[in-house]
């Protein structure tokens, strides 16, 4: 018996936010690109795991991607940030370089091969961090002009006070950067965390329309959010199936 194709996945042109890399603008992809955004302890990684299993059970090939997974930049950046060695513009560019490496060496090849690429955060987190640190939004928007436009972006919207509880359940201490401690918002770390997460959430609201980000109520239990998320992804895939 021979297993033969009766359907082929349609190739489609990619969409970018800007025009940074003419040599990539000709690329054609088959896969789908899904992004999950949200603060630390919002349940992102659990949700991505669950979604990955579900999609694989449905027969899709899934590839996981995310920020800070590239091989271009060493762990030294965390230490340098902590010691205030690097300026904010330098940090932004470092992260942009790291992200570009991810995009070109992992995300795009995955999409070309027909994978569903699930990204744990994307440029929106980077842009929001930059904006709350006083970097012009127009500059960041241009900087990430080489970024591929995802098919669908979800943002886990969690109330900062609820978030604090989840962080403490997980770690028993607040992360320096996730608390925006470099911004000097408050002497009190908890207050700083709540203020910083509030600023980040506001920035995400601001970006929602421009970048087509879909907000998900992240204050619910993870399994409840997971069902909601899977339903939305299923609906998207059904409405936009790429098989002919």
């Amino acid at each position, binding site marked *: 018996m021979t297993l033969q194709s009766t359907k082929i996945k349609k190739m489609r042109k990619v969409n970018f936010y*800007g*025009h*940074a*890399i*003419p*040599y990539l603008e000709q690329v054609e992809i088959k896969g789908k690109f899904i992004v999950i955004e949200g603060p630390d302890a919002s349940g992102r990684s659990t949700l991505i795991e669950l979604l990955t299993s579900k999609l694989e059970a449905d027969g899709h090939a899934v590839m996981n991607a995310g920020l800070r997974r590239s*091989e*271009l*930049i*060493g762990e*030294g*950046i965390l230490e*340098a940030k902590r010691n205030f*060695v*690097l*300026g*904010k*513009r*330098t940090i*932004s*560019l*470092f992260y*942009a*370089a790291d992200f*570009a*490496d991810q995009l*070109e*060496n992992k995300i795009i090849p995955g999409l070309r091969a027909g994978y569903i690429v699930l990204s744990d955060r994307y440029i929106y987190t980077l842009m929001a961090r930059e904006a709350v640190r006083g970097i*012009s939004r*127009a*500059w960041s928007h*241009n*900087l990430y*002009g*080489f970024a591929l436009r995802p098919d669908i972006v979800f943002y886990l919207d969690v109330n900062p006070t609820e978030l604090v509880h989840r962080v403490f359940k997980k770690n028993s201490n607040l992360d320096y950067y996730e608390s925006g401690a470099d911004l000097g918002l408050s002497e009190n770390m908890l207050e700083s965390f709540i203020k910083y997460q509030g600023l980040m959430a506001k920035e995400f609201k601001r970006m929602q329309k421009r970048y087509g980000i879909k907000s998900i109520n992240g204050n619910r239990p993870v399994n409840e959010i997971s069902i909601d998320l899977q339903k939305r992804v299923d609906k998207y895939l059904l409405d936009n199936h790429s098989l002919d």
Partner: protein
Amino acid sequence: MILMTYSRRRKKDPISIKGKLIVVEGIDGSGKSTQLRLLEKWFQSKQSSVFLTEWNSSETVRRITSKGKRKGRLTPITFSLLHATDFADRYERNILPLLHAGYIVLADRYIYTAFARDIVRGCNPKWVRRVYEFAVKPDLVFYFKVPVDIAVERILSGRPKLKYYEAGMDLNLSNDPYESYRIFQSRIIEQYDSLALSEDFTIVDGTMEIEEAQRMLRSQVTKLFPTLNISRNVRRPIAS
């Protein structure tokens, strides 16, 4: 003295800076570094506060960037962004604070090097310019213009091994590194030539004798200091 950044938004709100920024640009082997070092010595001999910064020289950035660069993994975008990171680090920590403090900052290559190289590598020119729009416009840019054959000969006679990216091997111009280097450099010259017009570079004939070129540079630089005759030794020490 008021300096402008390249940002369109900031033009209404220029940064006031006491120091001066003098830049040299040109391909490798054009003689620019030799000339800049002689300018540095000159300022030092006049007891001026002077600082020299070189392209791609941030130790911190080098330490954080992993071996990816050596493995030939870079694409035009990552290549461009890592150089922008290096520049931003030197800019945020040295160039800008020193200009504010009234230093004469000498830059061996500046954002124009990125414009020229990144555009040759295929990045979008508008994108590259906007990435660097936070940088202040120099008071003076000397562009060392030299025929590509002379520059290539100067480089290859002293240092026969060419590095991968230095030779532009990532552009697939030729399998021979020397031939690739030559083509790459001539494309960069084309970019410099067009920047020379739009950015108002002072063009220096890179085939001149060293002493003659330095005399001309010093006479141009002197014009930047109308109240302070730096050709006489009159600069007071900062603290006394």
